[in-house]
């Protein structure tokens, strides 16, 4: 292995771990990688079934309108058309928090791109031709394009929230455009503000982003209209949550819905939502059960799937002259789009993270999800944590500036450490934010650099730093099945989906480590909800932690079963056989009798015996202290807090306004790096993704019309933008409940990136940018002139 190549940019800072393990802690080549480089890995659109029809969707050109009539006659008459679906065919509503969304629009459209009709035909070409032949008469309604319009409540996007089936985790306000709200209150902010020497207030806005996975949404469905059996093949991030949603939507028992997960060409939260699945099912039901494949084109991906909601935040902080924070109030307003989707979870997770990883005795957070006539906001790699981190970290820099303190020093003074009281009143443990901040700063040489300087080419340079904290969704449950094949190899069956983050490598590593077994002998089984044991979701950076724990439990059982079989072979009592940490099944009374786990297949102990298979389970309901809705105070709101820090150096060309990110130093507490290169992949990828968020990416809506729904006009970072020197430290502060100390790293890599870059740009320009992305035109032509005289 080429570990040496990584060590140039990687440092592991061990707090409570060792590097002594045989399999974990060492870089391993990704499982399933060979199929990906050979092109044989089957992604969503690669599924082909005999007799398959092709779906196409008519999307609303209006952002808000009543549907007066739909004429599908001509479409139905087109040769090769097998089914046409309109809203009245499926008078059902769906949504994981509140069932507010139709499969196909009923009477009203609420965003440009909303499905109005769908067609299944013999070929894709015929299906699209048929869509063009559908005539719809609309009566346009006033469009709510932004937060300000939404807040007026003059036009209600959903007239009556009480009409919908609403879960206990969603709090819409009747008679308003508010689809959800979140409130946290710790102590008494008024007392805290009264104790302060200075009050600092700031606003920050994050733009609307598309996940822009290179694979678009797609689903193939075979749905039997008589039996109600539904089989879906799709690149679904969270097959069991989508299964539940689809069963409810189509009014069939849960077990009738079977979801086979294909390879996933990128997720980032975007493939958590059911998008093509309900439409493909509806078409298949209408086509008498023939399979239907529906793959969104890129323009449909932009207009009709999901996005990261734009968000506006206001922060007020009370602080002593020495930098001690006495109180903080954060107000968060999500511009959430036309349907609620997963926004309540974004609101919730962001709410807990909104004050940052700081000791704040008096705090308040108020979060509101406002509906607008735009495409649907949802989870985006961190459930709102990245957005609030950008706001609270800008605020920290403004406080530092006001007090004349170094930004790093201010953070270190306030940062949460073990034993401190967190934002919910919880006594914090396994905290290493301080170490992360110091390491991230060291990785760019923070202490030897001024806040801003001019380089030899005349660029305005600056440094910036940011940190964050993020919880994982709790409670949640998972289960895995580990089964031994006749030759002694293992299959792990887990519904933790692989979308590039590497869970199908870390879980086998954990099993190999636990059993003392060769990693090559352990494979991941494909995922199918009819076969694979239950797992709540693949989100929230939870998989290696939760499924890893389940794998460990299953491996313990495997050991017991193997000892029993070996006892039969050794002709001794079961209690006389032990399983050693290096993988030997050994007779205690006669140590010459032993079998290594790698040799179990040929040892004969499996022959004609009850097969070795074990279920491993893990759940967090027992440790969870549910945070009450009034104030969200809790002794244990989450099983795992994640945290980290990043520092950036940028160079701004004062003539062109172009920002170049020169260097990023990152430090993340991963608890224990199971696959160090896997951790680095998450962080490196996040840094470049975050660069896009900070400087380039933005979906632009005008009067409900998406102006840049394509990859030409919506700019994501390319190879040319990625000329960034990176130095990354993995801090290992072991989590007592994580498998081998693991914490999550899928989302955390992104959380402080944009914040660190924004702070660096602000320092470079001696200006206070209050929104992202910061594009060249913002640098050159901001309303409030930059302080740096060169611009």
């Amino acid at each position, binding site marked *: 292995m080429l570990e040496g190549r990584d060590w140039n940019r990687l440092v592991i800072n061990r707090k409570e771990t060792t590097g002594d393990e045989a399999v974990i802690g060492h870089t391993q080549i990704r499982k399933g990688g060979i199929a990906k480089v050979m092109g044989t890995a089957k992604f969503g659109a690669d599924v082909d079934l005999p007799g398959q029809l092709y779906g196409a969707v008519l999307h609303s050109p209006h952002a808000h309108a009543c549907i007066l009539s739909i004429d599908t006659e001509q479409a139905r008459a087109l040769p090769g058309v097998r089914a046409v679906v309109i809203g009245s065919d499926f008078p059902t509503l769906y949504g994981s928090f509140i069932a507010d969304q139709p499969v196909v629009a009923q009477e009203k459209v609420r965003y440009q791109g909303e499905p109005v009709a769908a067609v299944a035909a013999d070929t894709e070409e015929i299906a699209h031709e048929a869509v063009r032949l559908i005539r719809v008469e609309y009566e346009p309604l006033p469009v709510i394009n932004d937060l300000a319009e939404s807040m007026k409540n003059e036009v209600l996007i959903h007239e009556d929230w009480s009409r919908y089936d609403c879960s206990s985790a969603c709090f819409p306000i009747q008679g308003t455009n508010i689809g959800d709200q979140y409130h946290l209150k710790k102590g008494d902010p008024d007392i805290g503000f009264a104790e302060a020497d200075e009050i600092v207030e700031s606003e920050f806005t994050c733009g609307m982003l598309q996940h822009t*996975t290179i694979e678009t949404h797609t689903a193939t469905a075979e749905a039997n209209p008589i039996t109600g059996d539904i089989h879906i093949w799709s690149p679904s991030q969270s097959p069991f949550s989508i299964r539940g949603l689809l069963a409810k939507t189509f009014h069939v028992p849960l077990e009738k819905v079977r979801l086979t997960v294909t390879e996933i060409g990128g997720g980032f939260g975007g493939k958590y939502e059911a998008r093509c699945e309900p439409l493909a099912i509806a078409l298949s039901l209408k086509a008498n059960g023939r399979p239907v494949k529906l793959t969104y084109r890129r323009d449909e991906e932009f207009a009709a799937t999901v996005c990261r909601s734009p968000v506006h935040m206001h922060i007020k902080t009370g602080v002593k002259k020495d930098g001690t924070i006495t109180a903080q109030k954060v107000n968060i307003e999500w511009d959430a789009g036309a349907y609620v989707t997963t926004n309540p979870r974004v609101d919730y997770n962001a709410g807990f993270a909104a004050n940052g990883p700081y000791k704040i005795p008096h705090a308040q957070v108020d979060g509101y999800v406002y509906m607008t006539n735009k495409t649907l906001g949802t989870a985006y790699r961190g459930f709102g944590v990245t957005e609030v981190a950008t706001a609270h970290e800008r605020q920290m820099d403004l406080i530092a500036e006001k007090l004349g303190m170094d930004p790093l020093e201010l953070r270190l003074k306030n940062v949460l450490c073990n034993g401190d009281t967190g934002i919910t009143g919880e006594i914090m443990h396994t905290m290493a934010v301080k170490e992360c901040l110091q390491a991230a700063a060291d990785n760019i040489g923070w202490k030897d650099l001024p806040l801003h300087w001019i380089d030899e080419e005349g660029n305005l340079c600056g440094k910036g730093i940011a940190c964050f904290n993020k919880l994982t969704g709790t409670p949640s449950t998972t289960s895995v099945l580990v089964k031994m094949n006749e030759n002694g190899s293992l299959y792990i069956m887990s519904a933790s989906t692989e979308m590039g983050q590497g869970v199908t490598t870390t879980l086998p590593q954990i099993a190999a480590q636990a059993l003392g077994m060769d990693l090559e002998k352990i494979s991941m089984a494909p995922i199918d909800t009819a076969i694979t044991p239950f797992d709540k979701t693949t989100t929230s950076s939870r998989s290696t932690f939760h499924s890893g724990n389940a794998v460990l439990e299953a491996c313990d059982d495997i050991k017991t079963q193997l000892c029993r079989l070996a006892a039969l072979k050794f002709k001794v009592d079961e209690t006389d056989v032990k399983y050693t940490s290096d993988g030997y099944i050994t007779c205690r009374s006669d140590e010459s009798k032993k079998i290594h786990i790698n040799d179990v297949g040929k040892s004969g102990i499996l022959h004609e015996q009850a097969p070795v298979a074990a279920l491993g389970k893990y759940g967090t309901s027992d440790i969870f202290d549910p945070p009450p809705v009034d104030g969200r105070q809790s002794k244990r709101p989450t099983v795992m807090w994640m945290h980290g820090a990043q520092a950036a150096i940028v160079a701004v060309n004062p003539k062109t306004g172009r920002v170049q990110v020169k260097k990023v130093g990152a430090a993340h507490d991963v608890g224990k790096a199971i696959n160090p290169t896997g951790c680095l992949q998450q962080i490196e990828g996040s840094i470049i993704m975050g660069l896009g968020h900070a400087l380039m990416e933005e979906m632009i809506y005008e009067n409900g019309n998406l102006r840049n729904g394509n990859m030409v006009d919506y700019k994501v970072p390319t190879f040319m933008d990625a000329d960034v020197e990176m130095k990354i430290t993995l801090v290992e502060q072991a989590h007592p409940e994580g498998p081998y100390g693991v914490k999550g790293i899928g989302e955390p890599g992104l959380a402080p990136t944009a914040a660190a870059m924004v702070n660096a740009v602000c320092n470079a320009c001696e200006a206070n940018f209050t929104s992202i992305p910061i594009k060249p035109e913002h640098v050159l032509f901001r309303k409030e002139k930059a302080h740096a005289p060169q611009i």
Partner: protein
Amino acid sequence: MQNITIHTIVNNELYIRTIPVNMTLLQFLREDLHLTGTKEGCDEGECGACTVLVDGHPMNSCLVLAAEMDGKHVLTVEGLAEDGRLHPLQEAFLEVGAVQCGYCTPGMLLSGIAMLNLYPHPTREQIRKEMEGNICRCTGYERIADAILLASERLAGETEAH
């Protein structure tokens, strides 16, 4: 739609097919030949996921008509491994961790091979410029450049050995 018959060599195998004149090379590969390793990402030449080599030149197969492939050689990701061995660039992608979700990987590999043909010993700057048309959302690109550099070392070693 009018049809046309083409003789084209894909991954060193001759195919004679009658196809609609408006069929793209991407559709031809995926739907007619069932070579689904070539991916569709945007259908507008922006993402590079559908990159294949036509007579050695990288092309976005979503922007080229299959009809133009008459008499041409097409190389797709399925044609890279030979004699039961991965291409050195495929190996390098795995070893340095240049693959995550894997959806951009086929296009990256083909663009990478085309650039190694052009610059057997590329600099990072050359790699960035030549590979700019291939978008990856997972890796942050650095490891893809690492993989190309590693493969270039190995390919140079092989040439010397011969």
